[in-house]
């Protein structure tokens, strides 16, 4: 057989096994994840060069604005302004933060304590855990501060070199400039992050976050939306250095999930709940539904409830007492005779707080008593957090309706058709890079940061008003 005939035969064979619905000549995505590639390839973002796709700039720099048209001298003066601004910001932050020497002192003290004999004994367990947490926190702060110092020195040295090199080879200058801009971006990003973390001073901000995603009305489309959000938050948590695990999930009838419960945990001194609290509310999606027979545009909602997980954090003393009459405890042994008559291993316990309607189910232990204790603890933790949010003194003042409708109005719109736009209703933060946002990472972190700033400003305003009125 001639080579040409062979080739034709193989092309035909290849066309036969290719997914039929995909019209693109260079696409070989299997049918199962076609939905994914639709979003990915249709997005303009994909056609950007790879370098532009990766580090999507979030820090706005003078020097990044008009890099193509500006002359070298103009760029140098832009960079100088950036450096000056960043150094000022850095100094302001470093004044607010404890000094390097004092942090070093603290680290040394803690290390000395942890190296003492008897520190790891069981009797000392509580203290040793505390010290380990403090130690990792202080060490992180120390590395961060010294990193700032290094970056600041690098920047200033680089700027001096640039000024000396004026008139030299343009290539060398541009290499140096690029390096310098890279340092400015890293320092500014880290400073921004530090500033945001200063806002995270709520009592539960460093607790793990329990995220409950629930599909709104809309059947399969809504279940798929929950799946997309689940993927987004999972990737987001990983990108921010948190651990994310699925605690409970209820698969949808066709695809996706009816509900997913995620637990986002971080190392001591990080703020999982602080960051993710901004996500609480209804998320609205508008797109051409792949599950609609006519592929029509459809609007769906998913509810996101975020609560701090306080089960490990709180000891029994700090938990509120709830009168027994307010609690309804049900077990898996409710039907039938119970007692010696039945030998079942499932000992799940559901505890419901009657006034608020809040309920917690626990099945992860073998014994009923442990499940009951854990469920009660979690319930109390959630009630405490809600009480704090509603600014009421006692658990009994919690308004039941507020818990029920906790994800009332939409907080964010995700419009994928007819135009692409994700807009946060509370802060006005928006982006057209929808796929980048749904992939988790920088953009979502930016959006969360905007909410934190907004929230902080609102709180300050309120405090000022309170001060005025009193």
């Amino acid at each position, binding site marked *: 057989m001639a080579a040409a005939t062979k*080739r034709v035969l193989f092309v035909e064979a290849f066309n036969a*096994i290719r997914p039929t619905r995909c019209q693109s000549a260079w696409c070989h995505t299997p049918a199962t994840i076609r939905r994914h590639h639709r979003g990915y390839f249709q997005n303009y973002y994909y056609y950007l060069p790879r370098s532009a796709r990766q580090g999507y700039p979030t820090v706005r720099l003078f020097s990044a604005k008009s890099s193509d048209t500006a002359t070298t001298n103009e760029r140098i003066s832009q960079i100088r302004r950036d450096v000056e601004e960043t150094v000022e910001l850095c100094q302001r932050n470093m004044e607010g933060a404890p000094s390097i020497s004092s942090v070093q002192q603290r680290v040394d003290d803690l290390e000395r304590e942890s190296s003492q004999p008897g520190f790891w004994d069981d009797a000392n367990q509580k203290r040793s855990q505390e010290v380990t947490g403090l130690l990792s926190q202080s060490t992180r702060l120390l590395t961060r501060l010294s990193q700032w110092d290094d970056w600041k020195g690098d920047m200033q040295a680089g700027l001096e070199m640039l000024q000396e090199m004026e008139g030299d080879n343009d290539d060398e200058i541009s290499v140096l400039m690029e390096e310098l801009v890279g340092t400015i971006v890293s320092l500014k990003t880290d400073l921004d992050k530090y500033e945001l973390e200063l806002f995270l001073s709520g009592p539960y901000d460093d607790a793990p976050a329990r995220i409950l995603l629930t599909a709104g009305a809309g059947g399969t489309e809504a279940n798929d939306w929950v799946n997309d959000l689940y993927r987004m938050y999972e990737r987001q948590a990983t990108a921010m250095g948190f651990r994310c695990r*699925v605690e409970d999930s209820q*698969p949808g009838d066709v695809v996706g999930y009816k509900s997913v419960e995620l637990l986002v945990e971080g190392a001591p001194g990080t703020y999982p709940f602080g960051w993710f609290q901004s996500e609480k509310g209804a998320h609205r999606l508008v797109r051409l539904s792949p599950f609609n027979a006519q592929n029509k545009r459809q609007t769906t909602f998913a509810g996101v409830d975020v609560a701090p997980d306080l089960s490990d954090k709180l000891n029994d003393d700090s938990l509120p007492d709830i009168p027994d009459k307010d609690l309804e405890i049900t077990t898996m042994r*409710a039907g039938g005779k119970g*007692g010696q*008559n039945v*030998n*079942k291993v499932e000992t799940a316990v559901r505890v419901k707080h009657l006034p608020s309607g809040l309920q917690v189910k626990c099945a992860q232990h073998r*014994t009923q008593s442990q499940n009951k204790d854990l469920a009660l603890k979690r319930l109390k933790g959630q009630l405490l957090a809600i009480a704090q949010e509603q600014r009421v003194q006692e658990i009994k003042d919690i308004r039941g309706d507020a818990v029920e409708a906790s994800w009332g109005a939409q907080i964010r719109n995700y419009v994928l058709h007819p135009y692409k736009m994700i807009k946060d209703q509370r802060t006005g933060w928006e982006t057209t890079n929808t796929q980048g946002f749904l992939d988790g990472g920088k953009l979502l972190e930016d959006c969360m940061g905007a909410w934190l700033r907004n929230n902080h400003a609102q709180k300050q305003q309120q405090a000022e008003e309170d001060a005025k009125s009193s």
Partner: protein
Amino acid sequence: MTFQLALGLCLMMSVFVATARAFLVPPLLFTRHSNQAIRRVGKRNHGQIIFSTELPTRRISRFCSSAEDKTGDKTHLRVENIWKSSIDRLEQQGVSEPEWSVAHLLASAMDLPWANGFSQLLTRMSQADDTATTAVLLTTRQYEDFEAMLERRLKEEPIQYILGKWDFLHYEQLIVRPPLLCPRPETEELVELVRNDIQKQQQQQTLDTDTIHILDVGCGTGVIGIALADAIPNSHVHAIDVEPMAVATSLENARLVLSDQAERYAAFQSSAQDHTTVQPYHVIVSNPPYIPRSDMETLSRDVVDYESDLALCGGDDGMDVIRSILHKWVTEWGTPNSVCWMEVDPTHPALLQTWLLEQQNGNVVVLESIHQDLSGRDRFVKLSLRKDR
């Protein structure tokens, strides 16, 4: 002659088989896999179709090899496949709690952490895309262990017996052996009630002795007495059971939980009638056999076929052992201010009340309180001796 014929036949057969192999099998394999090869190559090179007759060897070797060779100890059985097929088998047999059974047995076979291994399996298995868990391959040993345990579960043996250990309250991995009663959740509630009651009395100083003597009647695996001995530091617990296995197991469990305090716990083989004591007890606690004989037929197989009748059936009305415990408590065992706690059938509190009124001319015993379990049934009774006797 016959020998030659046979030899000839043999030769012919082998030649035939060889030709069949050469002519039939390779083309089959070829057509089956060549598509795959093209698709893979095509995908990797982004659409540039490369002419290739190379067979993807990895796939063939997977097809041809048996379960164990080439990959060492691993079988080709994924956790998710085992999970689904085992649950189906249990469901077909009508065994109760198929998913939970598989979770516990699989976690044990795979040596997952005792505390949360099974619950991790349960949650992860419901997520199809969690391949880190679902796609794990079992080793031969794990698979054999699991299969042996599943066979036992298919015969409705209690999971506690198959694993040989179970939890009670917050005590982990206590030994459970046939024919002893597997500890039930209600019994945990009994222990919590008794513990709280004793601690309250100690605070109010109504139970003001150096050592509190406790008797556990019908100890079984020993969990009630051991948990009380652990919760109340100045207690001294005696446990009795008619079953020799119960005595041995209770003592082993006591060593596990109490370790260096184990001398505060002692177990004897004795029935309630025969047990005598020098030191009277402040607290009698018991989870006696209390199921009425008429109810024994309604029990499921995992209970009635495996757990001892002696630990379950309490005579016609279920009160035989309860009555003899009360009799011995009043006449021999108790101190004047002693109390008796028992787990009973929901029909018993009423029966007990009438029986007490009929029996005792002097009204010696008072049914002090009736407590409900978490499911709302009258499950626990507290009796005390009348002070003005």
